[in-house]
């Protein structure tokens, strides 16, 4: 018997962790046991690395107005940056779409989301005893857990 499932998902960081996170937070504020926050940070770092971007703590809109954020990613193609905040446990992306013809804002935020989910799925499968492999297929990630 086999089964195929499709899920539409949303990432939520447990509020007990998320309430400790503010725009002024730095990495030392994040406790060892906070798995979701650690995964989020790794997802952000991987996205920045993949895109040749930098991790920042502020982003700008088209008019140059600054917004502080928990973490942000700026790339050569999208120097205004995409900010990442956590509000009531929800991961919120902040960016100005005006003039973003290349849709970099959406690309960066989607990549962070996808990285987070990939790491979480890998860890969940490992926890259930599976041997895990990860592959990229175009824009999709394939995670295979085998017993």
């Amino acid at each position, binding site marked *: *018997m*086999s*089964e*195929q*499932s*499709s*899920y*539409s*998902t*949303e*990432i*939520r*960081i*447990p509020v007990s962790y998320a309430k400790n996170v503010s725009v002024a937070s730095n990495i030392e504020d994040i406790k060892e046991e906070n*798995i*979701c926050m650690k*995964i989020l940070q*790794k997802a952000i770092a*991987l996205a920045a690395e993949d895109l040749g971007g930098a991790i920042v703590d502020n982003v700008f809109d088209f008019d140059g107005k600054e917004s502080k954020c928990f973490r942000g990613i700026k790339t050569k193609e999208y120097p205004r940056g995409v900010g990442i905040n956590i509000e009531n*446990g929800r991961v919120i992306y902040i960016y100005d779409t005006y003039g973003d013809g290349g849709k970099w804002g959406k690309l960066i935020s*989607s*990549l962070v*989301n*996808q*990285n*987070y*989910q*990939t*790491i*979480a*799925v*890998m*860890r*969940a*499968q490992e*926890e*259930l005893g*599976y041997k895990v*492999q*990860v*592959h*990229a*297929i*175009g*824009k*999709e*990630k*394939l*995670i*295979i*857990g*085998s*017993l």
Partner: protein
Amino acid sequence: MKKSIKVIIDENGNLESDFSGFKDNECKGEEEKFRKLLEVKYGIFVKSSKIIPKNENINRNSSINKSIIEV
């Protein structure tokens, strides 16, 4: 038959999972366990889901191009 869970994550954050090699109702139980773990421990909440029993594996391995991410 080897038991496996294949998960495809698309660029819009949709997850498609494929549970293969499980006996009878074992599959449903494993799917629930996996989904709960993702939700409770890893903060991935399922907004909507569709589960289809099937007899054959999806085969998307043919276009694999590289391995990524080590945790």
